[in-house]
């Protein structure tokens, strides 16, 4: 059986950063397994700019951001197997993969880093009734058709969901000559980054219909979309009778949420977080399965690739430390999401073996103004942070000092209060 010190599943932004960190921390016998024909992951179809402000202090396109990490991986001598799909992972870190040159292979790894990315919530997971016709795409799918393959999927476009890909695609299709009729968002606030609302919708006069959703699709006689029904929803997100409007759209793009691709982890019973739908990890980004680490959008869905890079590098470093020193010792305590907070990552920390300051990432559940973020342990307030405005679409972070963590007798909790603004 082939043996590796570490195998990284997925060669997108997370996998590349994790691989680089492993190399930089002295772990040489590693490989990245990438299902696509090239590394870079979803960044390759994100040709708009805005990537890397934090990491490089400049605005790069997705492919340009990916290119820097692909080059770095090459310089460090990281082996990347492309067109290689992992078909199975076992708890004792045997990785089965398939490609055209090696066939079906089982390899043994000292550590595994899951950097598997996420998928877009499909139509069937939300309540759109009507005809199952051509002309309905996830936003990312339409993005691939346009930016990678060079095809427009339609001319009269409506978008459901104001997630970032939906917003980006609204602008992109408009620039390519499509008539973008509107963006409906079921929530009373947008789930996209504020800068994307401004630059992708407002600057192009594309209406954003908050508290609205697409309720029904109508196909023409050939089975292509020709019309959609849009309804307003009440505070419980139920359709308001009589609010129906109709749009002659030949294209409906869905940007209704991203879900970590958690299947490999799930199959071996790795504990997952109900809120993120990805694995639960500790401060080294190790999952509940020893030696198996997770990062990137397969861990939780990110707003900025810069955060993916930061966390994946920690996961890579965590895997390297695990290979040298074994698993973190001692008890673990939870870092929980208190009121106003959707989730925290990491959500476990080991007070007795924590080796450095830890940065915790979290999201608020509702938009807040004049917000106060509070860090508590055993009812004692350790820290408060004031923020003028925070929104669920923007990931927040807080760094906790090593000595604070080392002194924890019980878990930590992060909570947020403020004026709920929609």
């Amino acid at each position, binding site marked *: 059986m082939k043996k590796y010190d570490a195998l990284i599943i997925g060669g997108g932004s997370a996998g590349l950063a994790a691989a680089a960190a492993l190399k930089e921390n002295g772990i040489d016998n590693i490989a990245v397994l990438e299902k696509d024909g090239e590394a870079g992951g979803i960044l390759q179809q994100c040709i708009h700019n805005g990537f890397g402000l934090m990491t490089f202090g400049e605005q790069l396109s997705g492919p340009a951001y990916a290119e820097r990490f692909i080059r770095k991986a090459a310089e460090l001598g990281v082996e990347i197997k492309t067109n290689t799909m992992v078909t199975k992972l076992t708890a004792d870190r045997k990785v089965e993969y*398939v490609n055209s040159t090696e066939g079906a292979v089982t390899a043994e790894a000292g550590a595994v880093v899951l950097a598997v990315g996420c998928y877009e919530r*499909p139509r069937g997971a939300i309540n759109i009734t009507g005809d199952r016709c051509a002309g309905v795409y996830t936003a990312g799918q339409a993005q691939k058709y346009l930016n990678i393959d060079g*095809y427009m999927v339609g001319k009269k476009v409506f978008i459901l969901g104001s997630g970032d890909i939906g917003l980006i695609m609204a602008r992109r299709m408009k620039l390519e000559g499509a008539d973008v009729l509107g963006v409906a968002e079921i929530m009373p606030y947008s789930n996209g980054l504020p800068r994307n609302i401004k630059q992708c919708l407002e600057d192009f006069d594309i209406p954003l219909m908050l508290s609205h959703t697409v309720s029904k699709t109508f196909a023409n006689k050939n089975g292509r979309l020709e019309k959609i029904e849009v309804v307003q929803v009440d505070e419980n997100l139920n359709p308001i009778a009589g609010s129906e409007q109709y749009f002659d759209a030949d294209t409906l793009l869905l940007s209704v949420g991203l879900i970590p691709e958690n299947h490999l982890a799930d199959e071996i019973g790795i504990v997952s977080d109900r809120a993120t739908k990805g694995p639960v990890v500790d401060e080294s980004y190790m999952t509940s399965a020893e030696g198996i680490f997770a990062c990137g959008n397969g861990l939780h869905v990110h707003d900025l690739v810069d955060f993916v890079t930061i966390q994946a590098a920690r996961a890579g470093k965590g895997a390297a430390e695990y290979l040298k020193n074994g698993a973190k010792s001692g008890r673990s305590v939870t870092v929980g999401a208190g009121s106003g907070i959707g989730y925290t990552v990491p959500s476990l920390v080991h007070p007795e073996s924590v080796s450095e300051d830890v940065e915790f990432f979290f999201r608020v559940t509702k938009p807040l103004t004049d917000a106060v973020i509070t860090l508590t342990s055993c009812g004692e307030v350790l820290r408060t942070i004031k923020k003028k405005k925070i929104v669920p679409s923007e990931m927040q972070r807080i760094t906790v000092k090593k000595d604070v963590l080392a002194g924890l007798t019980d878990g930590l909790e992060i909570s947020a209060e403020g004026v709920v603004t929609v």
Partner: protein
Amino acid sequence: MAETKDYDIVIIGAGITGTMLARELSAYKLRIALIDKENDIADGATMANSAIVHTGYDPEDGTLQARLNPEGARLYEKLCADIGCRYKTVGAYIVACGEEEERHLDVLADRAKRRGIEYKFMTGDEARENEPNLSGEVTRVLDFYTTAVIYPWEVAIACAEVAVKNGTELFLNSPCTGIDRTMGGYIVHTPNLDLKAGIVVNAAGVYGEEIAKMVSDDVHFRIRPRRGEYYVLDNDVDFVCHIIFPVPSKEKGKGVLAVPTVYGNTLIGPNSDYVDDPEDNGTSVDGLGYVRAHIGKVLKDVPLNRSIRTFAGLRPSSDAHDFVIEEQKGAEGFINASCIESPGLASSPAIAKYIIDELISKRRELVPNENAVMTRERPVVMSELTPEQRSEQIKRDPRYGNMICRCEQISEGEIVACIHSTCGARSVKGVKKRVRPGMGRCQGGFCEPRVLERLARELGADPTEIVLDEQGSNILDSVNRK
């Protein structure tokens, strides 16, 4: 003027009834044409149903259904083995809540006994040991443990493939626009071809009445399409391992079920709503609401939040409340195989034999075709192979190592093979029906562009010409830039 071709038998409709019949008939020296208005085999009721091989306890005594359902069900397992289709025995629990429903179980058990169908009774508690999500209201369960599930369209496509290899001519995108009587037979008109034959079989599903009326007005059944809507749950949800039925009723049919499918998904549905338009197979707020409200009667904690798809299908229901399989009055050689609603799928092997033995063979002599091959090899399915077998297959053809669908682990080799097979895929949905990319939790989000690219390449078409399903359902609008 359309070209005219001569056949012995023309079958209208390439659903489970038409394809099963075409395969059986292809064992004889006959010139057979199988026509369908759609762009693929099995695009109507066969595509959207509960996918169950009912054992045959349900039909009322004295009906044709009561005769053909048990017989058809008994033929299925061997048939599926012969033509390389999945057949998975999962068992069916008919669950009763309270004394009145329990009495109905006795009626079903009595029918089953007389029809030679195996069953056993369980208490609610015994059943809950095997099915922990069964509602606490369930007091008694009738277990039809030989009940199986299949992929209905897989069976139909496989039957068509056997028939076509034995010489049957298949014409898709060929709606029957009219039927004229001639000396000793009929001319079936389609836009591009007129088909002349002594025997015509009407297996047109929800269009059965319309087709029958093209021959004469003496049609004594009325078809009223009945829509059934379903949720499909992700295949990593382990919700039920048996089919769970509420006690059936005459008014509501078999009720809202939970069905563990061949590939591990769970179907939840259907409702039952009459519709006027035979094309009205979209889902509805009320229909899906009905499913949600009723499944909770027999099962608890139904994880509908793990739904990956909803769909609707139309049953060719009729006022006959039974299959209508007979020669139309005053129309010699025109055979209706109509009103084939549930348990039509389970009955279909027996329906085919019935049509041949009781109707066609009385009209003409059937001479066995000694060259006919009635079996079909199952195509290579990578996810069903051991790692060693996979490596062997990849060595033979490296495209089997290039995985296209990550949810269901389907390779380029499998996709290319299904495009080039007999009755091969011509659409994205055609590929999905044959080898399943797009059936998984991402619903084609990742693989659809890759499938489309392969379809275009293998068919020698431009990507903008590739359709989702029927002609005109193009996925791409235009070239942007290369």
